[in-house]
């Protein structure tokens, strides 16, 4: 789960990590009030969306798609500039390298005080899958795309791995600061900041905290100028406040509804809907559709113990996508019995008066009963014995692949 920069900074501030003064705004008037309140010579006017690359992004009118302004993060030197930048950002679509061409509607702004920057660093805390531990990664090359730095000058990226039993130790913290070229007051400031940030990471079940840039000011203070914070959704049960931080407009509505029904759904661009049990098999089903010349319309995992009702919900979610020209059901029954799935498929196709071609591949527990139930039905259901046959059949039935 991702949160906005302004929410991430509130969290950092509450945990003792230095950030600049700033105000979250939803209107131009609020932005102007924020400017008056901050009383800073220069302020940053920052679009709030769940995607990176905002500074180099472009704003468009949501209706006409006319170009409005370059840059989703602007530095304003006057009240008038705050006004015009806010007007250009709020209610418009921001397209960045991470949003895709459709971009994201900006409804939130963050107005933040300026500071005298002496150097920009990169800092990230994340869960390192290979070492099965929290890793802290830092570089002297802040403000840039870290993937480029990793590729071109890997020696400029410094990493430390945290033993969960001992936590971030003082010497690790100090070594990292020294590797970044810090000393004296700045090193002390860095160590205090990082200890606070590690504590915040662990106590809030973060999966990532990325600060790019982290800056050293001319007065040797270390300040987080940006904040990208993600939480581990598995830990939601112990963080009741996440509900208030969640911005549902940033999530696909249909994916949220699928999750509420215990289904895992991701919309894709193709035209063959997939209904599968198990995440790995669901991915493999999409891959095989593509292999035989089709394009999957979605990823959909109904889970290990889906009932008739969930199968019906899954069908209706797939059919919401107007691009869907056919559906492939691929079930390897383990705990889930094929006869139950077969009944669910029939009930769903009848209830939804399904018009697109349907191929059903069943295997595993009670497969013969399942196949018999489908064979007896008068509905237009095409059986398949394995995944390859199922994919070939559905691709042929919709008249080949393509969009």
């Amino acid at each position: 789960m991702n949160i906005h920069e302004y929410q991430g900074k509130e969290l950092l501030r509450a945990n003792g990590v230095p950030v600049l003064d700033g105000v979250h705004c939803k209107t131009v008037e609020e932005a102007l009030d924020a400017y008056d309140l901050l009383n800073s010579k220069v302020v940053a006017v920052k679009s709030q969306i769940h995607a990176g690359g905002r500074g180099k992004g472009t704003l468009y009118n949501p209706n006409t798609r006319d170009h409005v302004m370059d840059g989703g993060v602007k530095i304003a030197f006057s009240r008038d500039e705050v006004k015009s930048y806010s007007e250009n950002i709020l209610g418009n679509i921001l397209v960045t390298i991470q949003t895709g061409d459709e971009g994201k509607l900006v409804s939130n702004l963050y107005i933040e005080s300026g500071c005298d920057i002496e150097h920009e660093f990169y800092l990230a805390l994340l869960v390192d899958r290979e070492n099965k531990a929290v890793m802290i990664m830092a570089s002297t090359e802040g403000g840039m795309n870290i993937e480029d730095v990793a590729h071109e000058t890997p020696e400029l990226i410094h990493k430390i791995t945290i033993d969960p039993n001992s936590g971030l130790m003082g010497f690790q913290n100090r070594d990292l600061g020294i590797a970044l070229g810090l000393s004296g007051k700045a090193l002390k400031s860095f160590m205090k900041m990082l200890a606070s940030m590690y504590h915040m990471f662990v106590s809030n079940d973060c999966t990532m905290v990325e600060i790019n840039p982290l800056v050293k000011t001319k007065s040797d203070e270390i300040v987080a100028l940006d904040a990208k914070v993600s939480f581990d959704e598995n830990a939601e049960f112990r963080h009741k406040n996440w509900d208030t931080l969640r911005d549902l407009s940033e999530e696909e509505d249909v994916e949220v509804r699928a999750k509420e029904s215990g289904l895992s759904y991701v919309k894709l661009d193709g035209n063959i809907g997939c209904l599968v049990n198990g995440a790995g098999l669901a991915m493999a089903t999409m891959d095989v559709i593509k292999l035989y010349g089709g394009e999957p319309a979605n990823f959909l995992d109904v889970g290990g113990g889906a009932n008739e009702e969930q199968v019906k919900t899954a069908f209706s979610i797939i059919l919401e996508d107007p691009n869907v020209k056919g559906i492939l059901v691929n079930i390897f029954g383990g705990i889930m019995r094929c006869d139950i799935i077969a009944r669910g498929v029939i009930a769903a196709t009848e209830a939804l008066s399904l018009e697109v071609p349907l191929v059903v591949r069943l295997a595993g527990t009670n497969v013969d009963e399942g196949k018999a139930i489908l064979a007896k039905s008068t509905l237009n259901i095409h059986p398949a014995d394995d995944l390859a046959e199922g994919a070939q059949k559905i691709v042929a039935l919709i008249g080949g692949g393509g969009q």
Partner: protein
Amino acid sequence: MAIWIEEDAKVLVQGITGKQGMFHADKMVEYGTNIVGGCTPGKGGQTVELQGSNYPVWNSMTEAITETDADATVIYVPPPFAGEAIMEAADAFDTVKGEGVIVCITEGIPTLDMVKAVAYVYNRPGVRLIGPNCPGIITPGETGGAKIGIMPGHIHAKGRIGIVSKSGTLTYEAVAQTMSIGEGQSTCIGIGGDPVNGTGFIECLAAFEADEQTEAIVMIGEIGGTAEEEAAAWAAENMTKPIVGFVAGATAPPGKRMGHAGAIISGGKGTAEEKFAAFEAAGIACAKDPSELGSVLLESLKKAGLR
């Protein structure tokens, strides 16, 4: 032989009085698994009826292992308590007998709980953790065998193919593919789809290489992380037995989580393309379609003079 779990292994069930735990414990007994009881704190002294017989419940894992000399435990405890359940089992196995296998089925455990639990298990070298978020491990026997998890037992048969996979249902698919060419399995292991888990691919490959019963291996990966690449590089140096591979997620869009918490391509790393390339570079025979795993395996067996 098989790996880690013998056909007659004595198995405990953590969370045996819960709905999931009881359902699957019953299925395991039905398959022939040597279930010796279970553990639910606060319900010690009760019994649970599985397939018409009564099985004892203990309050703690230390007590349960001391009383039964269990070889393994399987965890069906809900996510908020599963990390703790792993550590309790690890401590008990280590203290009572110095070794044991922990299989954690639970899906949805907080990642930082797993970071802690994995480090805890790592500090007890005789203890092995499989999972979490996995179908478990099964060693099929001539009749029955040891099924420790949620996989459908009846699709398996004893044989010489070792299977290791990140995915549940895709493992069943691989099992069905070996059966389609008349081959059974030595041991099948689901290592789980979470970003932080216990036993990894390399440990499974090493155990299969050392196991006399296993003559070839099917390895199924999926997008996310670099475990497949590392396993391939390791296999190129250390494996003499033929390996057949598949990676799920070639069509997955970057940045999206595909069901499994770990299945996400981030920053251009962890793609199926890279993983397939690493497999091929290591001499692993790849199936581009899981329905072809059987035929690719058959070819590999022939090439190795095993058919």
